[in-house]
């Protein structure tokens, strides 16, 4: 019988230690501190469930962000026990240490209030990386034929499931040390578009990712790929950009900079 259908009397003994000690960062751009809440434990409880319980039952002024609750929208990312996570798909029992949770706003982004960060720097860098569509045909043209098993299409497809959650951006120490660094998500999208046969901006993309803070600043340590909740590989995409820019630098790129 699924757990949620059991009566309290038949619940397993593990549920008896019935509360979690949850430390939530409260504050704003000017600073803040952790505040403790004791939250009842539930089966299959997610970190987002915990935050929601606090906001609904303990302190209505707690500010946080979420939308889909199923890992689609990318809006619920927070630091959980010092690691960036999508809170709607992170089970408390997997991440709590000694029955404690520390929940804080995403790293590497300015705080607006409590658990809400200002995502503008993150998205501004997508534009700076030319991670925007560069049309190569108009509406009068026919449909572009996209062959799924074309090697370049496979490269492009590898990154399209990005949900813009900024978990990789929060995990990246190069972002922490270099405010100009475009970051893993923006660079990965640039690589996706570079490999999309319908995108006409190959050279513009390589120029953009070669600027100060571009792909060459990446140290290939792989925190981005380690923490990406969708198992994407921004580090691999950045390696692709490094290779493409190197080929072009030595005059071996062809056809709109693509090789």
């Amino acid at each position, binding site marked *: 019988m699924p757990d949620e259908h059991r009566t309290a009397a038949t619940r397993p003994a593990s549920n008896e230690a019935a509360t979690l000690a949850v430390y939530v960062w409260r504050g704003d751009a000017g600073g803040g501190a952790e505040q403790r809440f004791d939250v009842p434990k539930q089966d299959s409880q997610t970190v987002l469930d915990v935050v929601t319980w606090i906001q609904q039952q303990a302190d209505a002024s707690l500010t946080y962000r979420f939308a889909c609750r199923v890992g689609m929208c990318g809006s619920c990312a927070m630091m959980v026990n010092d690691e960036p996570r999508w809170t709607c798909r992170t089970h408390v029992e997997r991440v709590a240490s000694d029955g404690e949770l520390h929940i804080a706003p995403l790293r590497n982004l300015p705080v607006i209030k409590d658990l809400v960060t200002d995502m503008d720097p993150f998205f501004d860098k997508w534009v700076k990386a030319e991670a925007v569509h560069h049309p190569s045909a108009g509406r009068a043209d026919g449909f572009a034929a996209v062959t799924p098993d074309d090697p370049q299409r496979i490269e492009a497809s590898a990154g399209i499931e990005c949900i813009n959650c900024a978990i990789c951006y929060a995990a990246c120490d*190069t972002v922490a*040390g*270099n405010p100009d660094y475009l970051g893993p998500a923006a660079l990965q999208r640039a690589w996706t578009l570079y490999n999309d046969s319908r995108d006409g901006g190959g050279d513009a993309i390589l120029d953009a990712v*070669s*600027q*100060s*803070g*571009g792909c*060459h*600043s990446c140290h290939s340590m792989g925190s981005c790929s380690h923490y990406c909740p969708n198992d994407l590989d921004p580090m691999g995409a950045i390696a692709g950009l*490094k290779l493409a*820019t*190197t080929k072009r*630098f030595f005059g071996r790129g062809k056809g709109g900079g693509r090789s």
Partner: protein
Amino acid sequence: MTELRLYMAQRLTALIMAPLVIGHIAVMIYAVQGGLSAGEILGRTRGSLFWALFYGSFVAAVSIHATIGIRTILSEWAGLRGTLLNGVCIGLCAVLLVMGGRAVMAVTFA
């Protein structure tokens, strides 16, 4: 585009250094096993254009390669930016070149 040039320069100098490091270590092992004294080694390196070029290019490659690496550390860990960062790095590169150059001169000039 500076970032790109520095990146390429660091990779190119690594390519130059790789065979030089292997050559350097191989010669050291050979010289030690052969029981050569310092005097005998200097006798072979002094006045040798080959060894002057070998270690001269080594010093040049190391100075450029190391400076670019330290430039990144100074910028990410010490927050240096712009003119200050470039000035410190040019100074560091010059120190490495002068110190390495003096060592090369000492063992290769007759």
